[in-house]
């Protein structure tokens, strides 16, 4: 399936990590325009990011995040060459993980 796109680069003494994920992010409240039926909820519930093996961000999401989510965060003390791992899990149990190196 989809994978997470990660771009991580140093700005001063901190790293900025930008991620793009592929996901429909359905709230469960939207009606299908054709059938009039509610589209079942399908959204990323949790996102965890590690830098150099340490968890730096542990996020909980609802359906209020836009589809194909974008997320950026900054980490002080990270170094060029550190490995960044970002993973998500959705409300239907699907999981996705990607990694990148801080450039």
């Amino acid at each position, binding site marked *: 399936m989809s994978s997470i796109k990660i771009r991580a680069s140093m700005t001063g003494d901190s790293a900025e990590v930008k991620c793009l994920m592929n996901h429909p992010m359905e709230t469960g409240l939207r009606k299908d325009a054709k059938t009039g039926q509610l589209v079942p909820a399908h959204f990323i519930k949790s996102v965890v990011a590690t830098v150099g093996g340490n968890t730096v961000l542990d996020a909980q999401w609802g359906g209020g995040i836009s589809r194909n989510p974008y997320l*950026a*965060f900054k980490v002080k003390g990270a170094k060029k060459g550190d490995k960044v791992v970002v993973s998500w899990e959705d409300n239907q149990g699907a999981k996705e993980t990607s990694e990148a190196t801080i450039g």
Partner: protein
Amino acid sequence: MNHQRRQVLKGAGAAGAVGVAMAAGLLRPTAVYAAPWNQAGFEARSLADVLKSINGAGAAESGQITVKAPDIAENGAVVPVEVISAIPGTESIAIVGEKNNLPLIAQFDLMNGAEGFVSTRIKLGSTSNVRAVVKAGGKMYTAAKEVKVTIGGCGG
């Protein structure tokens, strides 16, 4: 059919109670990795319940939190939001769309050098305050910015 709907709602309420217990730390697993999902908060329809679920009800307004978002969003389905907290020891940032059907949008726990900064894109159903609730040094702080929405992004 209506009766069935009631029962479903009741079931959701019961599940919510478990979420509250979790939030209170009663059922919290010991691992820091992947905090339990705040079900009570994410399923709450009222702003008051959402703020209660993230411990933000008595949060102090803070000028050290910046909520960056457009003044006017043409498309409520994609509203870029950036929250910057200059409060030392920022541990978590929650983002709330005050008038959304489900107001709690996200909660970010930050650790191991992560700065008080998150940037993402959210949905807003209508013109609304985007509120950030920040936990720093065990205390709660908050700030908000109004975004005018021309086309809502939360429904059909």
